[in-house]
């Protein structure tokens, strides 16, 4: 097991290098760079920048150098100093820009994930063990609604409803009166109130799919012969359910933790934009529009890295949870 993990970790290095190269290549693809975008923005607002001035800006930011040199400088900074480059748009290091938004992004994503599991796992289990009951139909209905409704639409409707019926502005992280205030109990409570809506909306979508996946898996497992064997042993239905079929049915749910990692980091883009939650998703969108290349590149790189690390975590989880995988491929 340990050897397997070490081997997989070593394999990460070349993959990450390749990914960083692709990430950089992708953000180089659109014509022009940040300076040309900036110049055209200024021109749109009536300010004409001389070509000399533009060239000076290009030199200042190193944009006049060939792309492979910029790539190596960028990677060198990341690997040696943890420096992800400079965000032109924000006028500060990329690392700082991301770090500012990371806590709130992670808080919302993780809480939404826990919320969706707390809702979905009991419903999924009940729904499978009471197939075609009223609750099952209800859960199926909610599951499909959760799956089918676009999150941003739900966000708009609920934000409107909160304002209309509770007089509560759900947009942003704090009510306006707390914006410039230092941290206090009241401000914290106010923030928690603002978190509820994004949590429910983001959680709903994944809860819907988790209910469906868990119900389907559990129905398959419940038909298996080992369930009858366990029943014939004299095990009570509850003990039986949680020791055997639920454990096997949850594997696919938990093994997707890895894929969720990048989503946890980025947060829901559209929902965050609609509810003005300052998470990393909207940041990626805006930086792409502004051709703020190091910021875009860094976020893409981090997302890719998290995807790779995430699938490693999934594989390790599965090997730990399922002896057939542990003793099958790994021992050879």
């Amino acid at each position, binding site marked *: 097991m340990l050897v397997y993990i070490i081997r997989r970790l070593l394999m990460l290095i070349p993959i990450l290098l390749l990914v960083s190269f692709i990430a950089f290549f992708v953000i180089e693809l659109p014509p022009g760079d940040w300076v040309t975008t900036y110049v055209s923005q200024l021109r749109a607002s009536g300010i004409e920048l001389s070509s000399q001035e533009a060239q000076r800006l290009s030199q200042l930011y190193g944009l006049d150098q060939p792309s492979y040199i910029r790539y190596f400088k960028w990677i060198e900074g990341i690997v040696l100093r943890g420096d992800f480059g400079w965000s032109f748009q924000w006028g500060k290091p990329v690392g700082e820009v991301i770090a500012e938004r990371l806590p709130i992004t992670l808080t919302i994503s993780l809480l939404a994930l826990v919320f969706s599991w707390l809702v979905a796992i009991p419903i999924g289990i009940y729904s499978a063990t009471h197939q075609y009951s009223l609750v099952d139909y209800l859960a199926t209905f909610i599951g499909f609604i959760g799956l089918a409704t676009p999150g941003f639409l739900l966000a708009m409707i609920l934000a409107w409803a909160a304002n209309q019926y509770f007089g509560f502005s759900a947009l942003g992280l704090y009510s306006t009166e707390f914006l410039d205030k230092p941290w206090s109990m009241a401000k914290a409570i106010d923030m928690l109130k603002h978190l509820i809506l994004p949590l429910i909306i983001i959680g709903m979508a994944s809860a819907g799919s988790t209910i469906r996946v868990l119900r389907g898996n559990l129905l398959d497992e419940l038909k*298996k*012969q080992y369930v*009858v064997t*366990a029943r014939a*042993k*004299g*095990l009570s239905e509850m003990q039986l359910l949680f020791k055997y079929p639920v454990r*096997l049915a949850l594997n696919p749910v938990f093994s997707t933790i890895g894929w969720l990692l990048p989503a946890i980091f980025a947060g829901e883009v559209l929902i965050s934009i609609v509810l003005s939650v300052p998470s990393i998703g909207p940041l990626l969108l805006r930086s792409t529009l502004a051709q703020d290349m190091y910021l875009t590149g860094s976020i893409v790189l981090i997302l890719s890295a998290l995807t790779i690390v995430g699938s490693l975590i999934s594989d390790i989880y599965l090997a730990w949870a399922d*002896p057939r995988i542990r003793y099958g491929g790994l021992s050879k």
Partner: protein
Amino acid sequence: MENANNVLVDIQDLKVQFFLHEGTVHALEGVSFQIQQGKTLGVIGESGSGKSVTAQAIMGIIPSPPGKVVDGRVLLNLPENGASVRVVNVTELPPSGSEIRSIRGKEVSMIFQEPMTSFSPVHTLGNQIMEAVRIHYPEVSKREARERAIEMMRRVGIPRPEERIDAYPFQFSGGMRQRAMIAMSLVCNPRLVIADEPTTALDVTIEAQILELLKDLQAEFGMSIMYISHDLTVVGGVADDVVVMYLGLVMEQASTNELFDNPLHPYTEALWRSIPTIDGDLDRLTPIRGALPSPFAVHQGCPFFSRCEKRIPGVCDVSRPPMVEVRPQHWVRCFLYTESK
């Protein structure tokens, strides 16, 4: 039918139906037979004859819904300390209640057909065998339960049981897995073991070993065995008495020797003609003509009527033949023998 004091299981007029969307399946249409203490009863029948449903009824594990016991009783005579006997009617007990659960696995246990899928793939065999002990003897320590599991695995012929107990089912061969299954069914020293086609999924040499093992274990532990099979020769090798079932009814019942020497029911005769023999002449095998009727069909008369070669139109398809004792301890459900009596 025999000495009533030695009866362990007494099934009386058991009727089980499955209520499906497509209609009602009359799985058992009034099954009666007894299992003697310490003896082996062979139950023979094609698929759909109700042999497995009968086994499920004895354990109270008929899948419900859609299955339901609509009539009849399954009486277990469980000897208690001294001479007293506790009589339990399984069909009256709530299927997941504590009383039936204290019987399952402890008094009556089951060996299943598919040793591959009958164990949970993600728990060790030891874990699953020890679980049987821990359910019924909560006072037994983990270490003690493990000792018992190892001992039973040794007894059923699993080599190096103290190592193999921590192995997972997929690390065992089919035959070894079935031995582990037998160990699990015997670890609580039950009075009855129901073997539901335990060797169907195994090859012939392993089958012979498993049958031999079951006989040895019966001699040692003295439990009764209900051996379910569609294979006459296998049942002939292990059973003391045989019950032949067809579409939810017992058609013929006798001791093994009697049934093999004097098969009386046309169905049993037809079964005999459809299997090859080593010493017999090299005639073509005669399959039973026709196909098994639809499971939804309701039979007014004898269920074998449509395929029977000796049928009497106007008699057999009008009413159900009764069970008659044609020779001593040899019972047949057929109109061919009612007139002569």
